[in-house]
């Protein structure tokens, strides 16, 4: 690959609460460098708009004021809110961005003085034209389960718009490869995350992995994690991981949470999004796979 495109540049910055790495290839070093800057800019922009912690972010503004009066947000935020609501419907709320009160209780998110009506869900979110978001009941949203994938997609777009044809954007495990080159992506072994369970070969596709091995903690004597089933607020406790591959990283990111909650019942939704899924047990053994119906002649499966 290096022989075809002369240089490959890799950069890494702390963003979105994790390490974001951009790898880009091309012939012209300055062009590639500019593309990488544009990629990081896009991610920093998503970070500013969708951070739960930053009081000036769209997410904080929505949590303060979308109920009862509504707030205008950036088109990107609006787009993510719209997708989040759709995924909540399609997954029967296995994925739901309104589980933030529980995440606050378990100290995954900071305590804020937001109003909150018990029982409110993403069905209470209304998206009006002109990028206005309105909550019918007081609720608290957190885009932690979707924004990272969205940010990766925006970074890939920015890189391409700047003339970079081949590269990888990896936001702490949510990654997307673009261009003609195949990439090897290593999946961590859930019970021993500093070792690897397998290798994925990826081309023109995104893969996201969710697992709780870095984040599980005790609360009142029980293990909790920030990975929640939106339907009953049940928390994932097992040391397993779910990887999902899809064309878009946002879709892959969200579907990992859906598979975590629904397991085999997520098959319909995976097929709808032409996504592949792989569930790894604690020792790294694959225990469930889903192969998407594929419209290309290429292999697109977890073999």
């Amino acid at each position, binding site marked *: 690959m290096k022989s075809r495109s002369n240089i490959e540049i*890799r*950069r*890494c*910055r*702390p*963003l979105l*609460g*994790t*390490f974001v*790495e951009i790898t880009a290839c091309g012939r012209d070093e300055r062009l590639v460098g500019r593309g990488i800057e544009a990629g990081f800019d896009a991610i920093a922009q998503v970070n500013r708009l969708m951070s739960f912690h930053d009081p000036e972010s769209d997410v904080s503004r929505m949590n303060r004021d979308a109920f009862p009066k509504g707030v205008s947000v950036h088109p990107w935020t609006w787009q993510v809110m719209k997708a989040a609501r759709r995924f909540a419907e399609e997954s029967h709320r296995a994925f739901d961005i309104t589980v933030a009160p529980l995440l606050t209780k378990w100290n995954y998110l900071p305590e804020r003085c937001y109003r909150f009506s018990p029982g409110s869900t993403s069905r209470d979110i209304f998206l009006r034209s002109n990028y206005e978001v309105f909550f019918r009941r007081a609720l608290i949203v957190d885009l932690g389960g979707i924004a*990272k994938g969205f940010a990766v997609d925006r970074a890939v777009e920015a890189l391409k718009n700047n003339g970079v044809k081949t590269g*990888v954007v*990896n936001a*702490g*495990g*949510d*990654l997307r*490869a673009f261009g003609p080159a*195949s990439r*090897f*992506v*290593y*999946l*961590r*072994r859930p019970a*021993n*995350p*500093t*070792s*690897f*369970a*397998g*290798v*994925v*070969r*990826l*081309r*023109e596709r995104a*893969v*996201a*992995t969710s*697992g709780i*091995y*870095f*984040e599980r903690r005790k609360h009142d004597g029980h293990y909790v994690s920030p990975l929640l089933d939106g339907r009953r607020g049940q928390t994932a406790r097992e040391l397993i*991981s779910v*990887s999902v*591959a899809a*064309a878009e990283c946002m879709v892959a990111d969200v579907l990992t949470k859906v598979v975590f909650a629904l397991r085999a019942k997520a098959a319909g939704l995976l097929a709808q999004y032409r996504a*592949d899924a*792989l569930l790894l047990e604690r020792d*790294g053994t*694959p225990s469930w796979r889903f192969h998407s119906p594929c419209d*290309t002649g*290429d*292999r*697109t*499966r*977890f*073999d």
Partner: protein
Amino acid sequence: MKAEFVFVALPISALVAPSAFAVRYFTVEQAQQAIFPGKSFTAMPVKLTGSQRKAIQQASGVRVLHDEQQVWRVSSGGWFIVDEVVGKHEFITYAAGLDGDGSVRQIEIMDYRETYGGQIRDQKWRAQFVGKTSKSTLKLDSDIKNISGATLSCRHITDGVKRLLAFYEIALKH
């Protein structure tokens, strides 16, 4: 659109002593030019006194592990600092560029090191997927470029930057 996605599972082989997964993004000089292009740099390492260490700890709420800090004065008036943080799984060297007023201009990761099970050097392990790839050989150390598998927090960097800002107030400003 052409797409491919192939997963090759690896056997559970005995884990030998952990070795390191490491990426070098920048040398000191490269990081300097990335954050302050075209500027010149004068090394001004700082050795902290006991009371300065204490003051930084108090102001930032972050422990100060070393009493020496690698600092460069930038010809434009800013500061370039190289710092290290240690997490549960990772050991990271990063560069922080501060503008003349002490605000953060840019953070760049220079070195990222992570421990992993040593099975990666195991021949059997390699044999599992060599041949399934388009290439006949796989240079493992250099080919482990992308890892997917749950989010690793960058909280240690965030804490490190907090500490550096307190360091600036207490030891650099004036």
